[in-house]
């Protein structure tokens, strides 16, 4: 869980302005979704892969393992979206490429279904590489900084900051409790596992309550008035780079326009 964030801190694009990175990722993602051109989607996926692995210096093995995470959902989801089921009646089993018949129900892929599934696969791949570019180059702190700049309500950014901070504390605690329980055969059988997991969640919950009260006391001691004021990092802008990135987006738009209509799905 810590891995993505620590790679973001260590990436070579860490010094880029958060707005540039977020703008690039979101604009490219929007083009991938709205372009309706498979060539553009493949281009985006390759471009984002090169930028994340080549430019930002994320280890390729880690990147590929990360790509495998949504693969299960995307593959099963795309396959089920493309799957056609027909019952008995006129036109049953008319234009299946691959089909299995059970009684009088036929299940299989038609040419249209297969192209829908492939189109979905490509679009998801393109959008996921955009998400990974943002996640692997921009630490959460910078994302929250950007949200504050975008005038997101202070309450929300403060909740985000607190949640972010304590995710690591509580995850650490959970893994310690889990180790301790495992040492005592806590996960040796199925019923043990259920009981241990219950105990673990209870322990984490109570500790969370304890932390929140300690935090309240600590803040009160420092004159807390309802706002969490913290020092902000400074981010340098680079107009040349911003212009290059805008040019890149324009290029993708032109490609999408030239290739319009050639769409699987």
């Amino acid at each position, binding site marked *: 869980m810590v891995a993505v964030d620590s790679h973001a801190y260590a990436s070579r694009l860490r010094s880029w302005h958060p707005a540039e990175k977020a703008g690039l990722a979101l604009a490219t*993602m929007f083009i991938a979704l709205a372009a309706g051109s498979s060539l553009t989607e493949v281009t985006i996926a390759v471009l984002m892969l090169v930028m994340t692995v080549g430019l930002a210096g994320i280890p390729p093995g880690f990147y590929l393992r990360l790509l495998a*995470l*949504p693969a299960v959902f995307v593959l*099963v989801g795309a396959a089920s979206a493309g799957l056609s089921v027909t019952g008995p009646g006129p036109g049953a089993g008319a234009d299946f490429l691959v089909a299995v018949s059970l009684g009088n129900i036929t299940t299989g892929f038609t040419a249209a279904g297969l192209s829908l599934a492939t189109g979905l696969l490509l679009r998801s791949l393109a959008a996921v590489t955009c998400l990974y570019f943002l996640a692997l180059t921009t630490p959460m702190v910078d994302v929250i900084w950007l949200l504050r700049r975008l005038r997101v309500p202070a309450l929300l950014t403060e*909740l985000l900051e607190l949640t972010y901070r304590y995710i690591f504390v509580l995850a650490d605690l959970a893994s310690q*409790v889990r180790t301790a329980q495992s040492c005592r055969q806590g996960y040796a059988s199925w019923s043990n596992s259920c009981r241990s997991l219950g105990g673990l969640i209870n322990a984490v919950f109570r500790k969370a309550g304890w932390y929140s009260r300690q935090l309240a006391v600590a*803040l009160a001691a420092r004159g807390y008035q309802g706002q969490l004021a913290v020092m902000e990092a400074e981010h340098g802008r680079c107009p040349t780079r911003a212009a290059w990135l805008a040019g890149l987006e324009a290029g993708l738009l032109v490609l999408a326009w030239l290739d319009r209509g050639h769409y699987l799905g």
Partner: protein
Amino acid sequence: MRRHPHLRSGPRAARPVRPRVLAVAGLVAWLWLAPRPALAMHIAEGFLPWQWCLFWAAVTIPFFLHGLRAIERATRESPDLKMLLGLAGAFTFVLSALKLPSVTGSSSHPTGVGLGTLLFGPTAMTVLGSIVLLFQALLLAHGGLTTLGANTFSMAVAGPLVAYGTYRGLRLVRAPSWLAVFLASALADLATYVVTALQLALAFPAATGGVAASAVKFMGIFAVTQVPLAAIEGLVTVLVFNLVAGSNQEELGDRP
């Protein structure tokens, strides 16, 4: 005399809820029969067409703003509530990253919707749930930014409402507490997946039969994995709830 909380959780956990034995036996049988690929419940990035991304974001935003405003009002009265909610968000995130016990060896995670709603209330859960989903997308590469609206609706709006409604309804007819907790969290889990299946069906209607046929298709595919998972999540939530209710209220502090 106050004892250390962790020392107490062991013997407490053994407090029996009788029908559990039957439930466990049934579950084990079911789990061995059903094939279970590890399936994520969140709609992956880029999976929905952009029109549907905007639609679900537009549907979710009023619920989110309502929750945020409720929290804002509450924090104005007691400023310490903000810290508690931040911790609650972190707790929900860690909860959703825990592994549920499984017989077949594949890993699966609880949604935490039921427990979160019972502990923090459905309104706060909408805000906490969307924060958790954002972090899951950016820290765990799970879910996505364009599908954030759709995922928030299924996990942080529909799920909590079902959990809250079920729990309240069952307590009203004087059902035992463990049954209300079990059904609230299991049904919240199921509601989350039914809504997800509906969202996918709306976006990808079947060529013959339209949205309804497509919904049946998606639910059929996801039901194999989700029905046993919902039952396990219900079971674990009952265990946690017994422990939490059995522990010292003073140690828990105020809950919203």
